[in-house]
């Protein structure tokens, strides 16, 4: 087993473990920490995929910002969510079935139907991926980029307006 495989398995394990904590843990704060763990795993996967920039951005945005937001929300709504409150609704059983079924379908497709459907290109990495990324963002994908920025602005204003004390 090569190092890459080992690292991949480790990272996937971390990711999925984090996800597991998120969906099962009764204690919301721990769930949030599980989320952080999972984010780290994903960042590692990015690094393994030679997307160093995305890995770092993942840490910066998700771990540094979004999970903090979530933790804040947990704090602010803490009173109703005492640690003993039941965390799963009535349909958790069927939900689990559905999720498993979906995973089954996707997994089956991946393993037996779509396996090697994608022409894995032999061309190596571009020598300056970050530069290329920046260039693509402002040339080919200028429109999505702008739209995303507008979205961010609107979300910012909207969040402030919604959450402000009347």
């Amino acid at each position, binding site marked *: 087993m090569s190092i890459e495989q080992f690292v991949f398995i480790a990272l996937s394990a971390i990711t999925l473990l984090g996800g597991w904590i998120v969906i099962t843990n009764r204690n919301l704060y721990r769930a949030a920490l599980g989320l952080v763990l999972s984010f780290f795993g994903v960042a590692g996967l990015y690094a393994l995929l030679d997307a160093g920039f995305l890995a770092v951005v993942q840490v910066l945005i998700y771990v540094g910002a979004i999970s903090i937001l979530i933790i804040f929300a947990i704090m602010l709504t803490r009173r109703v969510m005492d640690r003993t409150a039941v965390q799963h*609704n009535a*349909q958790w059983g*069927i*939900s689990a079935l*559905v999720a498993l079924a979906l995973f089954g*379908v996707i997994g089956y497709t991946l393993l037996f139907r779509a396996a090697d459907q994608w022409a894995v290109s032999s061309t190596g990495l571009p020598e300056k991926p970050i530069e290329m990324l920046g260039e693509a963002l402002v040339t080919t994908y*200028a*429109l*999505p980029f702008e739209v995303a920025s507008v979205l961010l602005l609107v979300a910012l204003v909207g969040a402030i307006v919604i959450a402000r004390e009347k």
Partner: protein
Amino acid sequence: MTGVEMREFFFNLTWLIPLFPLLAFALIVLWANPNRKLSTWLAWIGIGLSWLLGWTILFLSWGDIHHLTPPEGNHPVPLWTLPTGSSALKIGFQVDTLTALMLFMVPFVCLMIFIYSKGYMGYGTAQVDSRYSRFFAYISLFACGMLGLVVSDNLLTLFIFWEIMGLCSYLLIGFWYEKSYPDPKRITPKEAGLKAFLTTRVGDVIMLLGLLLIYSQVGSLSFMDVFSHETLDMLAHKTVMLPIFGSVPVATLAALLLFGGAMGKSAQFPLHVWLPDAMEGPTPVSALIHAATMVSAGVYLVARSFPLFAAVPLVHGGTQLAVVAFIGAFTALFASTIALAQNDIKRVLAFSTISQLGYMIAALGIGAYIAAVFHLITHAFFKALLFLGSGSVIHGVEHGHHEVAHGHHGHEEEAFDANDMMNMGGLLSKMPRTAWTFIIGGGALAGIVPLAGFWSKDEILAHAWHEFQHGHDFGTFWPLFVWLLLTIAAALTAFYTSRQICLTFLGRPRTEAAKHAHESPPSMTWPLMLLAFFALILGLFGTPWANQYHHLIGEAFEATPFDPFVAGLSTALAVGGMFLGWLVYGRQPLAAGEVDPLKRWLGPVHKVLENKYYVDELYQLIIIRPIIWLTQIFAKFDYDWVINRIVNFAGEATVFVSERWGEFDLVIVDGLVNLVGRAGAAIATGLDVFDLGIVDGIVNRVGDGIKAGGRFLRPLQTGRVQNYLIVAVTTLIVILGLYLVLPIT
């Protein structure tokens, strides 16, 4: 500089035309709105500049047409290109003959109406509107939308400006959103605005589908690419499979989808219901949006994409043209019959607008391209004139009412409808300028020689007749059909026009208010006179002998020869109709409270007409009642069942349906269901509306069906998003599983 240089110079400035009103809008909204005078002037200057530029461009292009007509082609000037990953959208504007012609009409009419609005919104009087500046901001934005639509060189920007206009029309119809009426059946401005918005939205969605289809097939939306010969050939010969209709040429499908948008905007038959109610808006708005410009945008769209419509000739199974012709002709007749029985002065005009738009659509349907555009232009002028005239009348009568009310108190409370023609009469002496200009407009509408309306309408009829006699690629049936219906409609038009004139202006005043009415301020009457002038002379440019319009836009099409039979017949019908109207209403004018003689003679038919063939009621019955009833059941039922676990394990398909009802509930909570219902039904219904018996039958059957469905769906609607989501996911899984199980094609 030489002519060419000058032309190039101005053509490259075209993009400024929509910009000026937009600028005015921004300035008024952001800065000038506290100051009424300033706002007025800003709006005027904005549209005025557009007007000057527009006419400059028109006359320059009139100078040498051949530069504009293909092959040298319409002048697309790309402004910028939006990279969208694999492809790029080219946004720009263009000047071709059609644009130039529209630039003759739109800015001028807008300018007139802007000037008129100053007086109508009561500038400097006691009754000045509290949202005066906002009104000017809105109409400026609207002007921006219309002008942008005219100059844009691709379907995308056209659609964007189209939607801007839709927004403005919503805002302006509901401009007096706080107004409410004593009788609950009468629709309030707020509802009317929503109704218009939602009804047109139906058409717009269809049109958007058309755009998507075209973009997916052509990979571009600019007119140059889409309407180029090779593209059209490709679209004409490539076919798509539709569930029911089998394989259809792409061109036909795309054209029909686009036409859906046109139907919504130009209030053609199934989607016409919003236009009459749009009269709840201020009268300048009715004139600007719902007579002159916006409603003609639909016709403009069809004219603009006429190559696409004509790609598959009628004789070779070009269904789209047949549909266009049928819808247009039918609407023309249908609306003109309704107009006979309306008492609201503005509603009469609204229905006549619908029917005139029907004329244009029908004309396009049988390939009378020039005639349609010609009628579009003339109609814009005289219909704007008529609306402004009616507005002036209403204004006068309202002021009269105010005086009376001030004279002896106690009258204030009693509901007085200044729009009702039965409350008018004898205004000819009270407000002569308005009256005479109105009569000129009416003559033009009825098609009296040599007023503008006559020539354009006659050209349509003549073309239809011509096609019928030796029609090549439009067959003979549709031209005859169109000709027949339009001719009848012409007679009716003349009749209700003269009815309107007689009821309003002749005879003796039937109310105190009418007695005390007096002429409107000059800022209102001057536009009337200018428009009247154009209504007088505009037709003379389009006479069959020296047809400037043909010279301008139609070199590609062969001119319609003058046909004495058609011309004589339509003249006779027009004069006869007007005379008949005079006989009925003018000879011995109605006294106060006297019933409309038409009512006596036609009896139940009149009632049907008066209620607009019960179309609204039909939509009401088919869609809205059952839904309300159903949701009440749901509500009752959920109340008992919400706690129950069962909801979670109910069958997925049914829950999926129940999501839809959940959305309806939300709508009902907002009290919008009427409008949604009518709009929604507008697609569904293609019934023979004349037969109320059938209507009842349908209502019952639909009711039963929904009741059955309701019994089935009761337990499923919990209002919990997670329940819905789980079902959505399950469905997804099922679909994926099917893909896996079934052999992948």
